[in-house]
């Protein structure tokens, strides 16, 4: 789990949304993939597709690459090409504002912050706990890496698990 790469992804996505890009790519790792799938599940990004150095062919109707495209199938991942894979993300915009507002990494490589359930409850209630600011704005999300996968803070409280705080999305 490289938090250095995660910080790079956060700033890369901030730059990409500021430049109003529709499609961008990040290195393919298991951590990035599961975090981005969690973001996609919450509606921050429109698509997450594993492709090569060049973007996969766009879907005929959606305009961005899609995972289950029956017309143009994706290149299968093999031992030979796994090293050159990247994650291609479709970014969303609404009323000329980026849906993915700002990603801020919280755990740093030199200071990893783990929150237990009690601390997480305080954070979800909007209070500061363990150097993590509370969730106080509408639509604000906090992503944690737990032993049940990467989840949003509220979902963690619901499932009563704590974990390593990865990043905050506004």
């Amino acid at each position, binding site marked *: 789990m490289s938090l250095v790469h995660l910080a790079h992804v956060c700033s890369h996505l901030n730059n990409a949304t500021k430049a109003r890009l529709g499609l961008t790519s990040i290195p393919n790792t298991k951590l990035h993939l599961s975090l981005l799938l969690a973001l996609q599940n*919450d*509606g*921050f990004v429109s698509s997450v597709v594993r492709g090569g150095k060049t973007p996969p062919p766009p879907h005929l109707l959606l305009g961005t690459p899609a995972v289950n495209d029956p017309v143009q199938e994706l290149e299968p991942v093999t031992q030979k090409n796994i090293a050159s894979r990247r994650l291609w993300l479709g970014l*969303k915009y*609404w*009323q000329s*504002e980026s*849906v993915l507002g700002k990603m801020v990494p919280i755990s740093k490589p030199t200071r990893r912050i783990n929150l237990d359930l009690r601390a997480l409850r305080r954070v979800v209630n909007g209070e500061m706990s363990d150097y993590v600011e509370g969730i*106080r*704005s*509408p*639509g*604000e999300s906090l992503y944690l890496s737990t032993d049940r996968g990467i989840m949003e803070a509220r979902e963690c409280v619901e499932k009563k698990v704590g974990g390593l705080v990865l990043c905050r999305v506004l």
Partner: protein
Amino acid sequence: MSLARPAKCLFCSFSRAASAVGPRVPRRQFHPTPTYLNDRKPDLPNAKLEDIKTPRDQKPNTPEQQAPKQNKAANEAGEVAVDANAQAPVDTNVQPEEKKTLEEIVRNLKPENFQPYTAEQKAHLAKVYTPEQIAAIEAGEASIDPKDMAEQFGVRRDPMKLLYVDDFSVVEPGVDKHIRAPESNSEYNPQLKTEEDFAADFGRFFAEMPENGSVGDWVRFVETLRVTKGKEEAELNPHSAMVPDLFGPGENLSGQKQQQEMKETEEKGKESEEMTDALKRLLQDTGFDAMEIRTLRTKTLVAHSVVNQTRLGKVRRQYCLSIAGNGDGLLGIGEAKSEEAPDAALQSKYRAIRNMQPILRYEKRTIFGDVVGKVGAVELKLMNRAPGFGLRCQHLIFEMCRAAGIHDLAARVDRSRNPMNTVKAAYEALMSQRNPEDIARARGKKLVDVRKVYYSGRITN
């Protein structure tokens, strides 16, 4: 609809006064489980009530046990005929029976239960209704066969049923829409009067004018003179596709109160401020009338003199920054410079009124989330707070919140505290709030306000 209502008054629901049984305003029901209704099916549908009774409830002697059975029809008739208003005397020999659910009443109805009004009930009705209304009620009741009533009587369960109690006798602004002009008022081929028509009108006026005609006659003629030919109502009261306004002028939910207040302020205001050109232009631009402008909250927050150094010397002018708000979600700021101090203040106030923009407010008391603003070296953060917290912030932000109608807020001004930039940064922060509806729409997710769900939508927003 109220389930406590007896059966008969379903057919004369306009007769009831509004009761305090349920909410009068339709309200979105947030809770997923339906309200518990006391008309469930009995646990043992085939068993009679007497059989289910526990031995302790049963009276030892049989004659009394039989009595309720005989009186049942009469009792039900009594219960059914009792109007919510008309407290008809219940038969004294009817014993207090066990409570029935609405379902049971509906199921056990017989034609005998629908008796005509007794003389006493009629006397009571006569207190409330005119003879014509009573005649209409009686005719309506006579036109329906009691047998049909007993067979077909039911409780409304369709999706169009009313979820609130209403006596339909008064128009309630907000719930009931105003009556719009009928469609027959439209004229499909409207034609303007020609000059000859006007000449004929004037001729008629002069011909019919009395000997000692006054200016009043002329004014009346000019005011009633029509411009088009054809239907009169098409010009005077045309049909419109627009939904009529919820409130008429001076009308509000609580009745006539507002009108009196308006009159008072009008009388006061007339003396204080005369109509200047600038004010006239402001009224034209904003669409407010003079009375509304006067009720706005305006305040000059920053005032100091500024100097322009020219080769001829220093030119001194007064600078003013004002805010304006209506105390209900509108806020604007305006700046002005002038040689005269009062002129600068007035100009800045008018500019603030012109710049007024809606500000998002959560529950009409605080802001959505924490917002930051930065102008120059002033960096500030506004934080939303719980009800009753108050405005714990510095005076400039306090005044802005008061003008905008925000009641719970905390603020922190970091780095510089320049008054002018503080006001501008606070305005920027207030305007940068994000609407949860927009966030939900952008993400394609449903966001739920838990506070509203918890208080079943009773929080005004």
